[in-house]
């Protein structure tokens, strides 16, 4: 019985790594397309998003089955509940990557994006996602902590991008529609950063049993 459960936990771990890897790929392709890289296509992002959704359902039912059949306790329970939370964050990252990919079609020709910090922001967000998955895969507290710290960078980059977009809107040197789209893209990346932080926090939770939100409550 136990060995079966261990096997199930292992499978869950592999599935999570796969889902994380898909998110990484989707978001990095979206960032590349935004950067004007012609070697990748947005089609791949959409198919990845679809796969990620399917995998989410798969993992969800897997977790439910384990909770019901095995009634895990202590660390096993933490791992499974963290997995349940993580997949929803990963699914959101996948969705937003698809949204970004869709919007890039409209902004690709605009001049502004080259000068903006949006590319840098995209790269920072991609790195955060990659590192949060790394933290999960290696059960690495330090990397998780770094992801949580990096969110500030992405946030400040978002504010900067917003200012830049506002400035170019005032100068009317670009298509205003594209500027709005770029703003949305920037916001998506900012959200992706937040999801990466969530992932990192759940990684920490599954290792230590303490979630960041609990600490806040204690402070209050």
């Amino acid at each position: 019985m136990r060995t079966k459960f261990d096997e199930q936990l292992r499978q869950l771990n592999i599935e999570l790594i796969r889902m994380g890897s898909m998110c990484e790929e989707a978001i990095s392709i979206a960032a590349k397309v935004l950067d004007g890289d012609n070697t990748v296509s947005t089609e791949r992002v959409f198919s990845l998003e679809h796969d990620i959704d399917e995998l989410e359902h798969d993992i969800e039912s897997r977790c439910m089955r384990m909770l019901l059949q095995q009634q895990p306790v202590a660390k096993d329970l933490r791992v499974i509940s963290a997995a349940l939370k993580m997949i929803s964050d990963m699914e959101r990252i996948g969705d937003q990557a698809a949204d970004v990919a869709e919007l890039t079609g409209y902004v690709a020709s605009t001049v502004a994006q080259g000068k903006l910090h949006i590319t840098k922001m995209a790269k920072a967000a991609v790195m955060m996602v990659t590192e949060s998955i790394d933290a999960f895969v290696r059960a690495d507290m330090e990397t998780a902590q770094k992801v949580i710290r990096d969110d500030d960078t992405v946030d400040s980059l978002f504010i900067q991008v917003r200012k830049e977009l506002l400035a170019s809107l005032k100068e009317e040197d670009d298509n205003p529609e594209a500027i709005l789209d770029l703003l949305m893209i920037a916001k998506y990346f900012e959200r992706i950063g937040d999801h990466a932080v969530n992932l990192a926090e759940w990684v920490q939770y599954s290792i230590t049993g303490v979630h960041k939100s609990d600490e806040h409550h204690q402070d209050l």
Partner: protein
Amino acid sequence: MMTKRIFRAVLGISFVACLAGMSIAFTVLYSYFDGQLSKELKNEAEYLAVSLENYGTQVLEDLPESSERVTLIDTNGTVLFDNFFDPKTLDNHADREEIRQAMLTGSSKTVRNSDTFQKQTVYYALRLDDGKILRVSSTQYTIVAVMSGMVQPFLWITFSILMVVGLFAAHISHKIVEPLNQLDLEHPENNESYDELAPLLTKISWQQRTIREQLLAAKQKQEEFQMITDYMQEGLLLIDSGGEILSTNHSALKLLGVKPELQIFVGAHRENVLTLNRTEPFCRTVDAVLKGKRAETVLELDGSYYQMSANPVVTDGKVEGGVLLFVDITQQKQSETLRREFTANVSHELKTPLTSISGFAEIIKDGFVRPEDIPQFAGKIFEESQRLIALVGDIIKISQLDEDTLPYEKEAVDLYSLCQEIAKRLQSAAESKGIDFQVAGQSTIVSTVRKIADEVIYNLCDNAIKYNRPNGKVEVAVVGSSQKALVQVRDTGIGISAVDQRRVFERFYRVDKSHSKQIGGTGLGLSIVKHGAAYLGVQIGLESTEGLGSIFTLTWPRENDAPALEMKQD
């Protein structure tokens, strides 16, 4: 366990023996006493009968108090005398069994149990000569009563015997087992124990030796394998059917970017291979191999390219795992890219002059050119074909240097005079641009291949003039020391930016692409320098500031060939 069994057996046997002995003794004794009693009754009756005949009934009256019960019964069954009861209270005894029997046979014996079976009465009846019956009876405990009376002492005896036997059994069983417990199984043959154990001990000893040998062999195999794989340049991963890592080597961990402090194997907990790399091609390859298919892919890791080959391990048609091999193909990939670029460039460079030549020739053929203009057109065709020849010549040189099969012998070459010679050849070119061309230094002799050294220095000087500003300066300095010889070509030209410095030695690479046509040249000059220098074992240094000029430095090492050269000089 064994002690317990021996103990129980001894105790059990003692208990059974005790029980059997007692019951046998009891049965024998009881039947003896029973027989004795009947005999006594009979004797008493017979004595009484004799006494009665001789002395009359007075004998009965004088019976002592302690006597057995004696009854005298008349022929009709009426009780005439009884020493325990008043005869009048007793009813007729004619129907009593012993009386009836005695009347018929002369004497009889019967046993009657009391209501409770606790006691039994034994009657002995004797017919007297006058027909009266004399009966003597005695009451005694029945066997059941005797037995039940004996239960308690019997239990006490059994208990005390068992106590003693228990102590003894514990001791004895311990004593039997003790040598077994003290067996030294590490050295089975050194034991002095029961002879019966000898074959077992020999067998154990033999097995131990076999196990030791096998363990040693297995360990050696494992070490051998680890050695081989660790010194392999290629990365190697073994995974089981669940995708968990069974074995790795240093290269694999290094190229997959696993930090050394990260322990992959923590006890029995094995990591899944996807924790090392989770990119899509990697996952796909692992999936394929675990389904029993061979798979190959190219992974890009940290800017390097690796050919990942995965082979399934199949036993009895079942996939047991996989072998993943990673081969660094970065160099291959790079040279492939270079070659592709070179081919593309060569075709382009060859096509340009050919197109011009063909164009001019076509115009002449069609008669669109006035006869007086023909020399001019022919001149252009000549120029272009010269360019083509130069280009093909350069390509041949480069490919020869590339092949590394040039059959040149090293000889003593004076770099200073070589430079002066080159300066002379380039004199006219320098003058036409108004460039001041200087060669400084002193005679410096190195062992090298003259033809290639000439080619290298010539190309550097040629470039220094070509890419110089008008009325600029080119200085060639030759410096020699005991360890090395330097040739430095310094110009005041356009200079090369830091980004371009890395690429100028590539074939057909031009810093200023827009002006290449005016300057001329094939774009292969520095490439020839690079390949030539590599052939000679000469280092090239490049310092440059954009807009100010460049300094190319060729360094010949001299350590080894210096003495040989001195001899030659003599």
